[in-house]
C-alpha cells in the first residue's frame, strides 16, 4: 500500500505539450505511471506520443477528466499560468469526481497567487494539492510503480518507509539513505519549498499513520516558517510510528533567502536549531548530518522492535 497514489492511479499532465511536460511524461510512463492524457489549451484533439502509447490532449481539465476517468493531475505549466491551472484542476476534479489529487511541480509562482489558490482549495476539501515548487510524489511498486513528478525513479524501491520533504534533491538523498540501510519506501512526498503551499507535513504524517504498510517515516525540513515545529507538536500525540527528522540550513545566515522562496530566517524565527529542538522534544530521532539519516532510521527501527539490532 501507499498513500494517495498507487499503480492504478490514472494521471493527467497539464502542460503536456511543453518541453518539460513531454520530457517528464515520458519518464513517468517509463517508470510505470498510467498517464492517460494531457491538457494544453488550444491543442485539444491532438495526441502526444509517449513510450508504448499515444495519449490524447484536451483543451480543458473538465473534458480530460470526463473522457479519461483520471483522478490525479500533474502541472508543468510556467509560473504565470500555474495558479489558474491549479484552480481549473481543483474545480474540475471537485465537480466531476468529487475530489482529486493535484501535484504542482512549477517553481516561482507568485506568493499571493498561492494564497488565493490555497483559500480556493480549502473550500473543496475533497481536493488535495501537493506543491508547488516540489519534485512530486512517488510510490514504488514491485516493478516500476507510480511516479508523478520529476524525481529519478530508479533510486527508489518498494518498502515500508514514508518520506516527506520540503526539498528536491535532499529528498533523493533521504531515499538513498533508506536504501543504504536496506529499507525501501511506501510513498515519498515532496511538499515543496514555497512559503505558501498545499499539503503540509501534518497531512502527510496523518496519511502515513493510517497506512498499514508504512512502518516508519523520515521527515526532511528546512529553515523558515514553523511547519516543522507544528508537525513535531502534532506527532507527539497523534503519530505512533518511528519518526526520523533532519532540517537543512543550520549554517544559513538570518534574513537571507536560501534558494527556496520559503527558506529564510526572518525576525530570528525559523532557525534549524529551533526545529531540531522541537523534533527532539517530540521524541523524533534526529540526524544532524544527512548522510546519517540511514543510521538514525536504523536506530529508530531497532528501538521500535521493527528490526534486529
Amino acid at each position: 500500500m501507499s498513500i494517495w497514489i498507487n499503480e492504478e492511479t490514472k494521471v493527467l499532465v497539464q502542460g503536456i505539450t511543453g518541453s518539460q511536460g513531454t520530457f517528464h511524461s515520458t519518464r513517468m510512463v517509463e517508470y510505470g505511471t498510467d498517464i492517460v492524457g494531457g491538457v494544453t489549451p488550444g491543442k485539444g484533439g491532438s495526441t502526444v506520443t509517449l513510450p508504448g502509447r499515444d495519449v490524447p490532449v484536451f483543451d480543458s481539465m473538465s473534458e480530460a477528466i470526463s473522457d479519461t476517468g483520471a483522478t490525479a493531475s500533474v502541472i508543468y505549466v510556467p509560473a504565470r499560468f500555474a495558479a489558474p491551472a491549479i484552480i481549473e484542476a481543483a474545480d474540475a476534479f471537485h465537480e466531476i469526481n468529487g475530489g482529486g489529487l493535484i501535484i504542482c511541480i512549477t517553481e516561482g509562482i507568485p506568493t499571493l497567487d498561492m494564497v488565493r489558490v490555497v483559500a480556493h482549495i480549502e473550500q473543496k476539501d475533497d481536493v488535495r494539492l501537493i506543491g508547488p515548487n516540489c519534485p512530486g510524489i512517488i510510490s514504488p511498486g514491485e516493478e516500476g510503480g507510480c511516479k508523478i513528478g520529476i524525481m529519478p525513479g530508479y533510486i527508489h524501491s518498494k518498502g515500508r518507509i514514508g518520506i516527506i520533504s520540503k526539498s528536491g534533491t535532499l529528498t533523493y538523498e533521504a531515499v538513498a539513505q533508506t536504501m543504504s540501510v536496506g529499507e525501501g519506501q511506501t510513498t515519498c512526498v515532496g511538499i515543496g519549498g514555497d512559503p505558501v503551499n498545499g499539503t503540509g507535513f501534518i497531512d502527510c504524517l496523518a496519511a502515513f499513520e493510517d497506512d498499514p504498510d508504512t512502518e516508519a517515516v523520515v521527515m526532511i525540513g528546512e529553515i523558515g516558517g514553523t511547519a516543522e515545529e507544528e508537525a513535531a507538536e502534532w506527532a507527539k500525540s497523534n503519530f505512533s510510528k518511528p519518526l526520523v527528522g533532519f532540517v537543512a540550513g543550520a549554517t544559513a545566515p538570518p534574513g537571507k533567502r536560501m534558494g527556496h522562496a520559503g527558506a529564510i530566517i526572518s525576525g530570528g524565527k525559523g532557525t534549524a536549531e529551533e526545529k531540531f529542538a522541537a523534533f527532539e522534544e517530540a521524541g523524533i530521532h534526529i540526524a544532524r548530518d544527512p548522510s546519517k539519516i540511514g543510521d538514525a532510521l536504523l536506530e529508530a527501527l531497532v528501538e521500535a522492535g521493527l528490526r534486529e539490532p
Partner: protein
Amino acid sequence: MFRESGVRVQQGEHCTTVEQALSAYDSLGSEIVAVKSQIHAGGRGKGNLYCPNSGDLILEGGVKVAFSREEVEEYASKILGHKLVTKQTGPSGKMVSNLYVESGCDIAHEFYLALLIDRETESLLMMGSTEGGVDIEEVAEKTPEAIHKEWFQPSMGLDEEKAGSMADSLGLKGPSRDSFVEMAGRLASMFVDKDCSMIEINPLVLSGDGTMVALDAKVSFDDNASFRHPWWHEIRDISEESEVEVRAHEQGLSYVDLDGNIGCLVNGAGLAMATMDVIKMYGGEPANFLDIGGGADSESITAAFGIILEDPSIEGILVNIFGGIIRCDMVARSIIEASKETGLEVPLVVRFSGTNHEEGRIVLDESDLDVVTVSTLGAAGEAIVGAIGGLLE
C-alpha cells in the same frame, strides 16, 4: 507608490548630492525637514555614520531632523558618501548614496503598522502597535500583547470591520479612526495590486490635523511576481544589492555570499544548505550557498566555478551533485572544462550520487584534474575540510 494608492505621505525629494538636498529644502518650503539616509536596510534612525576610510564616527543617527538650511547642509554632507551601520546592515554597514529630504510633520502620536504574508495561516496579516518609531522586534519580544493582528484574504481585501477593529486596538477615535480605516484599506489594496511581500510603516503617525501619515516605510516585493510589474526595473537600485549575487542570478544560479573559505557547488536548494551544514559539522566554514538549479549546463557550471573562485578567501571547493535530470557525467565534464578556464588551484572534492554517478566519477578519475571523489555527503565534508587542514579533533 503610496501617494498613487491614496496613502498620505509627506512631500519630499530624492537627492544624491548636498546641492540637491539644499534645493529640495528650498522648494519644499518647510522650515523643518527630515534628512533621511536611503539604504536597503532598516534601523537607520538608530544607526551611525562612519567614514569609509578612517572608520571615524561622523554622525549619530541616519535619519535627522533639520531645523535650518545650514543643518540640512551639515547632515547631507555627513550622510552622503559615508557608511551607515545599523542593526540590520551588519558591522560592515552600507554606503549611503541616496537621501530623502522631506517636509517636517506635526506628530501627535507614532504607531507601527505592517502588512505581510503569514505563512502559518496562509493569508495576509496586518500588524499594528501603538509603540511606533521604535524597534518592533524588541516590542514583539518584550510585550507581544502590544502588537495587534488582523488577518485577511487578498481576494476580499481588508474590510472596514477589520480595519476598524485595528483602529480601536490602536486607541484611535472619531475622525482619526475614520482616517485610519480609509488608509488601511488602501494600503491593503496596494499590497495586493503591487505584489508586495512586506510593507512596514514605522512610524505611521497621527498628525496634528487628525489624519494618518506614513512617515517612513520599507517595502519588499515578491520576486516571483516580477513578470506582472515591469516597472520594478525602473525603481531597482542594483548598487544596493550584492553585485555577485545579481550576476549569479543572471546565470540561473542561486548564490548567497558567506564568510567562510570552502566554496560549494550543489544542485538543489535544500541539498545546498545541507552541504553547508556538513562542512560546518566537520569544522569548516562554507564560503557560499550555491544552487545550480535543475536546468544547469556546462556554461552555468563554468560560471558557477568562476563566481566561487572570485572570492579571495576560497581555500577549497566541494561539489555535491545528486543527479536526477542533471547527469553526473555532464557535470564531470563541465568541472574539467571550468577548472581549465578558471585555472583552479585549490583542493577539489566531488561527491556524485544519482544519475550516471559512476560515469561521472570515471570521467574525473581519467582526467588529469587533481580531484578527490567520494560517494556520500559526510565523506565529502570530511575530505574537503581535511584537505585544507581544518578538521575538528
